[in-house]
């Protein structure tokens, strides 16, 4: 190739690189997560049940971090939403409802999965931390919507039970960047615990529906 032609090609390529650099400054850097993780890897140490693998992000976590506080792009969000929906396992015996009293204890319990918690004990759901559930427990949080009269307002049809089960199991299948943990997909609650929480929401005797 003639040296002059090569020179012209190089010159032509320069503006492309410049534009790319400016653009990267304006939108969230694609490796913002990687940069955060590199710092965190050097800044944390495993303790108790919380190993360093807790810093690894899955696709949902990565997508919802990268653009935050802005919402992720619709196309990528739809894919991750579908992947979370596909995670849901319905109850093996087809029964959605357990014992609402046990469900209430699970809803009150905030411990579970922290390095300060006993890993041999079952985790709580900590529902009251974010949701109003009934009129007895007034020490409830407001990050999530009120669930008072949840079952009373919805009835107990099969599709409705299935929907609620799926939301408890993996809320990211409905609102991709929801603040709510994926209690089933992430193995926080067992199938029986999920049934008990379902009963808390749906049982006519539960304080939620009084």
């Amino acid at each position, binding site marked *: 190739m003639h040296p002059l032609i090569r020179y012209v090609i190089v010159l032509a390529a320069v503006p492309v690189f410049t534009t790319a650099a400016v653009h990267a400054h304006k939108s969230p850097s694609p490796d913002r997560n990687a940069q955060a993780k590199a710092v965190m890897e050097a800044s*944390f140490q495993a303790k108790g049940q919380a190993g360093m693998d807790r810093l690894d992000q899955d696709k949902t976590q990565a997508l919802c971090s990268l653009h935050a506080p802005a919402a992720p792009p619709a196309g990528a969000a739809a894919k991750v939403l579908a992947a979370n929906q596909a995670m849901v396992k319905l109850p093996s015996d087809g029964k959605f409802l357990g014992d609402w009293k046990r469900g209430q204890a699970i809803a009150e319990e905030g411990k579970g999965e922290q390095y300060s918690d006993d890993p041999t004990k079952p985790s709580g759901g900590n529902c009251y931390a974010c949701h109003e559930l009934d009129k007895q427990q007034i020490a409830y949080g407001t990050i999530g919507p009120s669930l008072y009269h949840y079952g009373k307002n919805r009835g107990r049809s099969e599709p409705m039970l299935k929907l609620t089960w799926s939301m408890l199991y993996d809320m990211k299948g409905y609102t991709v960047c929801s603040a709510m943990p994926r209690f089933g997909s992430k193995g926080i609650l067992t199938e029986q615990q999920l049934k008990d929480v379902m009963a808390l929401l749906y049982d006519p005797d539960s304080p939620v529906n009084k």
Partner: protein
Amino acid sequence: MRLKIGKLTFWLTIVAGAGTSLAGSLVWAQTAPDPVAEYRAMFGDDNPAVLWTLRGQDLWKEVRGSKHVSLAKSCDLGMGTGIIKGAYAHLPRYFADTKKVQDMESRLLTCMVDGQGMDKAAILKNRFGEGDRKSDLEALAAYVVDASNGVAISLPLEHPEEKRAYALGKAIFFYRAGTHDFSCASCHGQVGKRIRLQQLPDLAGPGKDARDTYATWPAYRVSQGEVRTMEWRIGDCFRQQRLPQLKYGSEAAIDLTMFLAKNAEGGKMAAPGLKR
């Protein structure tokens, strides 16, 4: 001083009783729109943190370590050697001697270890006091921050490393991970929310919540009976996020503090504060 401590003990007794009823009495919570604020008001000017501040003052002036020097004669918190007035309101910042951005805690550690020749492992082992085992770092933190009372938080981020720390702090603030998918923003990304009865400040960007929160740390934590610093606060948030343990003086702690401090810019320091 004797009188002051006597008065403190009196108030602490009252508050210990109130704490018990706070946990037990839902009725009170129903009638009081912000029980934590009422509870705080009961202390008036009597913040037990004064005990930490006084001990911190002694520690600051004491000749210690293998290098036989006081912090007052050797420690530069960014305003010049020995100067503490206003120092906290301009931290974290870049320090040329360590070539790092440092927050108050990591800088105090540098001063004690490199400046005074004290044993790093021993200081870190005692970083969070408990009962009779008091932390030098927490006492020094109370003393240093007290000297910024009324000073406006200001971080110009002039050094590229300071800008970098802010950007990384922001990335960490929004970084979701762990069994529960939580990031700092899961709890601190909206205005006017609470967890159980505890109000959650919105710390995701500049604003009143960001200013009021940052300006009142370090703080005397009534439920723990100790003065805690921002590094303790951030570390305990990460525990609840189900992440591993945050290392004291680590880059993530400093970067995140930089993000929170910058968002609090313009707020006037009012620490040590008083927290539930």
